[in-house]
């Protein structure tokens, strides 16, 4: 971790990035608690969708940490395929009874 922040160019002040990363981590913890505790499958799908969006936010903050513009392209690819999992899981739950 110290290795990453020592030989890289941070685009923003380090405390800002650390506070943002900690907030995203707390948000991911909340989503994981909802996944564990959700009363039914729809709650868990909602929490998985939220967790995928938080992964994308974490990718953006990682790009700010390292100063590598490649993270934006990774984020774009993730944003394209993000909703497919949610739609697939929802349609799976929503299929008509046999």
């Amino acid at each position: 971790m110290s290795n990453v922040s020592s030989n890289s160019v941070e685009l923003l002040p380090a405390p800002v990035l650390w506070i943002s990363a900690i907030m995203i981590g707390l948000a991911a913890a909340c989503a994981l608690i909802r996944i564990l505790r959700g009363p039914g499958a729809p709650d868990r799908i909602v929490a998985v969708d939220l967790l995928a969006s938080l992964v994308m936010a974490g990718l953006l903050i990682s790009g700010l940490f390292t100063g590598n513009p490649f993270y934006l392209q990774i984020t774009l690819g993730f944003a394209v395929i993000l909703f497919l999992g949610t739609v697939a899981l929802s349609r799976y739950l929503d299929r008509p009874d046999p």
Partner: protein
Amino acid sequence: MLTILASIFVLFGSFFCLLSAIGCLRMSDTFARMHVATKAVAFGGTMLVLGNFLARPDMASLLFGILIIGFFYTTLPLAGHVLGRTIYRSATPPAKPFVVDEGEPMLRTRTTNHP
């Protein structure tokens, strides 16, 4: 100056993501959880992308930022719509009874091959 603005955007975006996750944990209703998890994160992610652009204002950041925001705002409401329909059809009880419930014919035809 631009760095301060970018820091404010990034902090606000991640704070909004945290608010959304707390709402997803604390809301009393599956519909409210779906709403707060799919709409609020789009706003927080937009703030993060804007902060990313302000921290490195070049052409690639602008282009990818516009594309990322566009995909956010087209795909996340779509996922929210499909999720809401699934929650409604799975007969999850709301915290309070619906004021207007126009979807009952849709529930009655559930066993047919719906589009």
